[in-house]
């Protein structure tokens, strides 16, 4: 991306540090403490690299909990690169069988290449090659501006009823007369 003249800022969010706040959000329905700021930064990012360890043949519960407390529309059209670590290469399909459906539901733009690193992959040329290929795809999505880079071919986010952000949209009010419809004769 820097070769294209774009500055890149990378910020790492460790869910461990906000694990308690994620649980509290799940129970109370609102973010407290550092979590609110983290969610704001995730929503503002041009792209997300989402990484989880494999636990019991899937993403960790903590990883899922973070995406559970985000608004369902939070990641619509957001470029995402998926990656996972595992103790054995037999977990290699976790990215495609567990993570990819989650992000498809969230309507994120996920790169075709995911990066799985089992213990035996570390330090091998194959892993570095997959990282490069995924990074190349991810950079292209980010530079293209994610969803909406090509306008006019389909319904806009607004029209399809889902736009990135949170559901608390207090500025776009539906005029009440239109909600009343026929009742206003």
């Amino acid at each position, binding site marked *: 991306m820097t070769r294209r003249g774009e500055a890149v800022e990378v910020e790492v969010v460790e869910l461990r540090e906000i694990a308690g706040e994620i649980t509290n959000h799940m129970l109370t*329905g609102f973010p407290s403490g550092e979590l609110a700021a983290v969610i704001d930064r995730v929503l503002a990012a041009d792209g997300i690299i989402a990484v989880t360890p494999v636990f019991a043949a899937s993403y960790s519960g903590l990883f899922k909990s973070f995406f559970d407390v985000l608004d369902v529309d939070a990641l619509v059209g957001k470029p995402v690169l998926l990656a996972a670590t595992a103790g054995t290469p037999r977990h290699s399909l976790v990215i495609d069988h567990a993570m990819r459906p989650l992000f498809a539901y969230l309507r994120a733009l996920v790169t075709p290449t995911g990066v799985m690193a089992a213990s035996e992959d570390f330090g091998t040329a194959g892993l570095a090659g997959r990282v490069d290929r995924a990074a190349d795809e991810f950079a292209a999505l980010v530079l293209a501006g994610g969803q909406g880079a090509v306008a006019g071919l389909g319904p806009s986010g607004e029209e399809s009823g889902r736009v990135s952000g949170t559901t608390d949209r207090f500025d776009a009010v539906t005029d009440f007369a239109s909600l*009343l419809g026929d009742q206003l004769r």
Partner: protein
Amino acid sequence: MEFGIFTIGDVTTDPTNGRTPSENERIKATVAIARKAEEVGLDVFATGQHHNPPFVAPANPPILLASLAAQTERLVLSTSTTLITTTDPVRIAEDYSYLQHLADGRVDLMMGRGNTGPVYPWFGKDIREGVPLAVENYHLLRRLWREENLTWEGKYRTPLQGFTAMPRPLDGVAPFVWHGSIRTPEIAEQAAFYGDGFFHNNIFWPMRHTKQMVDLYRRRFEFYGHGQADQAIVGLGGQVFMRPNSQDAVREFRPYFDNAPVYGHGPSLEDFARETPLTVGSPQQVIERYAAMADHVGDYQRQLFLIDHAGLPQETVLEQIEMLGTEVVPELRRIADARRPAHVPATAPTHAQLIEAGESSPNAHVNPAARNAQSEAARQSREGARA
């Protein structure tokens, strides 16, 4: 400003001794709570409407409120909330009009949609239609209270032909209505459209969220021509536990907090108290916290406290109401009166005020926004003619 208590009639086991009140105990306790509220000088008692355990709030609030009307003299009897989605508007119109007569007008009510899916099908409704049900049913309710020989057709109930709900509202004045919603902008918009009150039950929410909902309502209240944004009628929820010494309050309330059905087993009492209106401490701490609410949402008209919940013993609940009435509310009332500008209403309109306001009140009209728009257009054309 009006202060009161609201209850949802939860039957909850006391976590400190494992004791669960019977339904009969809890129902009788609710009556005692309301009587205590009047005795110590609170202004409002509001009950929820519930159809499922672990609640014994009445399925039809006027049953409880009619009994209270006979046992009190001054208390405003209200709801928190009346389910406008699953209750036939014809029954709401008739039951609350009847209550108005029994209570000599000491009645207003708060519309809510209910938030548990299973309730809807018990009454032949679908929760996915929650907002459209609230919209159609409430508009019909307004007409039932204001029109006789009503002929009506809609989507959610059988049509009406020349129907007159009876009895007619006391003195021909429909009760004042609040609309309660926690996170649905359409409901704030609905309250604004009619010039009704908006109640944000913020007890489980941070002020930044409450402020956004109230701001939306105020902005749209002005847009629909009912007055300035700061004249809109706003109510908030609250939750407190007090002892003269704040450490005692925290120690006594903590087991109830830690095991409460809604937020228990999650955040610490301290975290939750920081983020939400929950205040556990001395009466002075409660005064300071609640006196500052108006800094966030503007001068508002009604503050209701949740007091009888989470398994707290009845004796403790009555002590809390006593402290509210004798130590907290007089001071909060004084502070609110001192800071409120003269053009901002002190309370939601009372029955007497609605009679006196007559046609000039939005409450007198089915669609006051349309009427405001017409008179504004007429004013502009007069001014145009003069120029």
